[in-house]
């Protein structure tokens, strides 16, 4: 019998994979994809809470919709920044984009 814990563990697994990708990868696009994975994991957790704790209120699903809105805005701006950096510096290696690093 699949319950709330299964969905939360799945969400935690996806979030950890996304966290590893966001910390360990050099390619800026892969980092952005990992962030999308983390947002999806959080959405799964919120929908699972909404389904199992307050099945008639649907607040978690509304929050998930707002997370999707913010994710869409974030990915548009993020990819625009990546393309702009690529135009100026011919690379999107996150370890080489260190102009603002002290």
């Amino acid at each position: 019998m699949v319950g709330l814990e299964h969905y939360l563990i799945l969400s935690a697994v996806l979030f950890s994979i996304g966290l590893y990708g966001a910390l360990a990868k050099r390619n800026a696009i892969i980092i952005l994809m990992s962030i999308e994975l983390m947002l999806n994991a959080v959405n799964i957790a919120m929908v699972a809470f909404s389904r199992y704790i307050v099945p008639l209120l649907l607040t978690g699903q509304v929050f998930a919709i707002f997370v999707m809105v913010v994710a869409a805005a974030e990915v548009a701006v993020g990819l625009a920044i990546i393309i702009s950096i690529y135009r100026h510096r011919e690379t999107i290696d996150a370890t080489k984009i260190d102009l603002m690093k002290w």
Partner: protein
Amino acid sequence: MIGLDIAFWILAVVGVMAALAVVLLGDVFRAALSLVLCFLAVAGIYITLSADFLAAVQILIYVGAISVLIILAIMLTREVQRGSPANKLRIPAFIVAILFFGGVAYALLNTTWQVSATPPLEPTTPAIAGLLFSEGGFILPVEIAPILLLAAIIGAIVLVREK
């Protein structure tokens, strides 16, 4: 219910495998394609949670729009040949991810959730519309979201425009 359980396990395994492929594959383009597969699995997970509207939105926005945007960016930046190497923080990042997962799993397995026995609402679309647009609902965030999207569109256009 047994069908729902089988569906959950299949979707969970496919989703986790696809997510692992995103961070472990050397080829950026294949990583993007496995990200699409992961988004599809998450949409299926939403269906098993009886969130039908959210599953449709997930497929429209993530599988339809965001993945196309990511693949377009991969094509434009021509990093496909160089692959997706890990930086020198690979081992610490792995340890951080494992520690995070251990902490979260420990916390949520030791919490007693007040699971409600009520069957979920179906279909969810009218209820979500009522929540989003009714007076006591989320009408202010709904008004703010298009401003955020407009700012993101203008910002993206300004950033990628040729001088």
